[in-house]
């Protein structure tokens, strides 16, 4: 056990002991961050001058900021000069066959029911001609182009649609927003750009999965999704398979813009390396996600299943500017081992009749720590705003922790805001009932937990929901009983 762990850690840390990698460092910047690095990133990507200026502005502002310390998380201080801020995507190491992949990872794939071909893709094994993700992506792109949807890397978008990017980028998450957003704005490596034209219903669900080999987005991902009036899109991020990654710090920024009657559904499954059994290693995931319901009757829905990362710090939010706009947040966050999650949402009601729903389910097992932190703000002009929040925490084991920190600020007398939260362990009565019906304790617990998360899972796109359920079971393996 101990050995496979250290192997896994080695994989994550980028020290591939197996020695199957050639020339890993040839196009990676040396660690450290200064203006020259920011300029060099921009130059590498062939960005327009204004983008460079934006990056520099963000960098200069970042220098004046302090790392936030209010979240219920503990980690050693991050030395930002020890991080390399650019690594060319073409060097992602290729393995020759699945035999070279950590058997523990393969066992997990197996449990998740991932096909061999997908396994290869996920593990970074060179994919054969039959299942060439590039060709899949190409057919995929053709049908999108027919609909007029733009779905590409943000660096590509900067080249091909600079005006569009310029108009929207940083309009939802300005670089001054917070420490990690400022850092991301300065050094973002790549990310996804989606543009749905007026009245178009995106013909398929957009998934980063299809871009997996095409562009390795790196640690400072930037996503921008624009849904024009009357359009609709569903976007899936991440995948259920454990993600191997050599970067410890991830600071992504996601911006969504929904115009009149537009609908954006953003689903995330995050299962990055959580660290070993002693809590060493693991990804720090500091993400700023925000959606702007600019138009009347627009709708933004966030769904997330968070099972990975050593530290998660993210608050997907909605600014409900438009009349009758709707914001939703559905979340399942699982922490076990020494994982820590401080996650939640902000619903800022500005428009009349704006409505929001928050459903957050936290599961803490072993020494895991899980915090819901949310803000519901009803501005003075938000007539008839409505919010309902439900946060439940499930505790498994006597050393775990669950916290709930909701903030409710109401400045309009027509608002109706409700918040409820519960914290408890798996009920003895429920367990007894299930055991009486012949289920083993583990099956019973797993069934109860799935029931606990059902409200969130049913918001996920179908295939995702099935995988998420399996993922949950795998994640909690060994934590129960």
């Amino acid at each position, binding site marked *: 056990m101990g050995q496979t762990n250290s192997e896994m850690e080695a994989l994550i840390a980028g020290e591939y002991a197996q020695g199957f990698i050639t020339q890993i460092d040839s196009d990676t910047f040396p660690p450290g961050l200064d203006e020259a690095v920011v300029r060099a990133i921009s130059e590498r990507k062939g960005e327009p001058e204004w983008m460079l200026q934006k990056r520099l502005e963000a960098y200069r502002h970042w220098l004046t900021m302090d790392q936030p310390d209010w979240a219920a998380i503990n980690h050693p201080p991050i030395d930002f000069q020890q991080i390399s801020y650019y690594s060319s995507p073409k060097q992602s190491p290729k393995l020759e066959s699945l035999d070279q992949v950590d058997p523990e990872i393969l066992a997990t794939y197996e449990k998740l029911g991932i096909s061999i071909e997908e396994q290869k893709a996920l593990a970074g094994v060179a994919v054969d001609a039959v299942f060439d993700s590039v060709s899949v992506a190409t057919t995929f792109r053709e049908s999108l182009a027919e609909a007029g949807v733009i779905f590409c890397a943000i660096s590509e978008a900067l080249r091909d649609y600079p005006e569009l990017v310029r108009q929207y980028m940083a309009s939802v998450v300005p670089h001054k927003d917070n420490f990690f957003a400022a850092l991301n704005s300065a050094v973002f490596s790549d990310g996804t750009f989606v543009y749905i034209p007026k009245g178009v219903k995106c013909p398929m669900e957009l998934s980063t999965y299809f871009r997996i080999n095409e562009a390795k987005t790196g640690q400072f991902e930037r996503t921008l999704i624009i849904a024009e009036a009357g359009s609709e899109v569903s976007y899936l991020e991440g995948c259920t398979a454990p993600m191997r990654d050599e970067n410890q710090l991830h600071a992504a920024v996601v911006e969504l813009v929904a115009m009149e009657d537009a609908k954006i559904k953003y689903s995330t499954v995050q299962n990055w390396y959580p660290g070993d059994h002693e809590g060493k290693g693991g990804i720090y995931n500091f993400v700023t996600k925000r959606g702007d319901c600019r138009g009347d009757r627009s709708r933004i829905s966030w769904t997330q299943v968070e099972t990975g990362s050593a530290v998660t710090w993210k608050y997907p939010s909605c600014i409900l500017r438009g009349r009758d706009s709707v914001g939703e947040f559905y979340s399942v966050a699982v922490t076990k081992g020494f994982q820590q999650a401080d996650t939640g949402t902000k619903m800022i009601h500005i428009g009349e009749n704006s409505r929001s729903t928050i459903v957050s389910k936290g599961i803490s097992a072993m020494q895991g720590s899980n915090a819901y932190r949310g803000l519901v703000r009803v501005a003075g002009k938000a007539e008839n705003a409505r919010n309902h929040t439900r946060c439940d925490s499930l*505790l498994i084991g006597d050393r775990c922790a669950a916290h709930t*920190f909701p903030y409710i600020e109401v400045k309009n007398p027509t608002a109706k805001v409700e918040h409820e939260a519960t914290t408890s362990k798996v009920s003895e009565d429920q367990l007894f009932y299930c055991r009486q019906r012949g289920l083993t304790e583990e099956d019973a617990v797993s069934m109860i937990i799935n029931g606990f998360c059902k409200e969130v899972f049913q918001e996920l796109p179908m295939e995702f929901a099935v995988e998420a359920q399996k993922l949950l079971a795998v994640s909690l393996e060994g934590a129960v009983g």
Partner: protein
Amino acid sequence: MTPSLSDYKRWTLQGIETLPMSSGDWMIDRRLAALERFEALGFPDRRSEAWRYTSVEGLLKQGFVAPANTSQSDQDDGIRNHLLPLATVGRLVFIDGQFIEAHSDYPSGGVRVSSLKAAMATGDRKVLQAVGSLSGLGEDGFAALNLAGFHDGAVIQVAQDVRLDGPLEILHLSSSRAEGRKLPTRHLILMERGSQAELIERFVSEDQMSCYFNHQVVEISLAEQARLNHKRIQMESRQAYHLSDLHIALQSKASYHGVMAAIGGCWSRTFISNRFQQPDAHCELDGLYLVDDGQLADFHLDVDHQVASCSSRENFKGLLRGSGRAVFDGLIQVGKGAQKSEAHLHNANLMLSRQAEVDTKPQLMILADDVVCSHGTSVGQLDDQAIFYLRSRGLDEQRARALLCQGFLAEIVDKFEHQALIELLNRRMNFVGSTE
């Protein structure tokens, strides 16, 4: 002009110099240590999480540096106007933060009642050592300054297995002489094993427009199986500032039930810290707040379950009218190993006007698994259908609204039990007179 920290320090040092020597050097040392802490902390600002929604700027601008002049004593101050038909077993009267023996009477059997000033004069070490034992030097600048500068307060000790027949009352009256002054007091309530008592505290002022700063720290210690029922009604003048810190510690099987009402003052904040020190103790906190134009009411609860098998229940309701503002922060903590804890917190707010604002923040911090904890909070309005129902029964709109508001708060008001208190509250809250 807003006074500086050194102004506060100078005044406090002057106060310490006038203390009777009999109170002991160590008491003075503790005050000086608190003063040092005050200097280190300063006054809280909105960057501090506990003060995020409650600005102290207005309070500091008033410049309450000088304590009330305590040399004048037993004037009548219309004390009779504030007495209620309560079947009390004893009454302690404080005018401008000073204990007035002439207006006070209290039982002797099984209860020791005195003032902190008297304890300092006689050097009653047992009593004085209890000062600050629960509050520490102070979690914020205000609390530290209170410890450094308090000049009086009540000491109530209920002996083992003594059960009082009726309530004890502490009446805090602010006279017109309190104008522009601060009134730093501290109370010590020590309930010995198996004792039972009921305590009523009221804060009233002679002049409804006088402006002063009443700051009180109460330390309540309940030994095994002791029970205290504590009712507090804050009805300060509409220009007054009121800050209360309550520190409650419970030993095994002890039980504390607090009922709080905050309806006066232009700025009031009540901080309640409840610590379970031994298992099987129980705590209940009920409260109501009502704010009108220019008022702020703030309640901060910190219910700390660090030992197993304790239970707590908190229920606070608020009514907001005019440009009133309310802040509610209810924290429930369950420590490692505090299994079988049960805690439920509820906060409901009725917002009746356009200019009102409410900020509510219930919090759960749980580090044990075998627990049942919940919190719920809501912000809403009167139900149109309920108004319609009452109107269809012949009530006019105003009456209907008043009845619904009264009904909303009734569940808390009823916890004051005594008819005189219930009537006082309902009269003072003036549901019918309100135009909204």
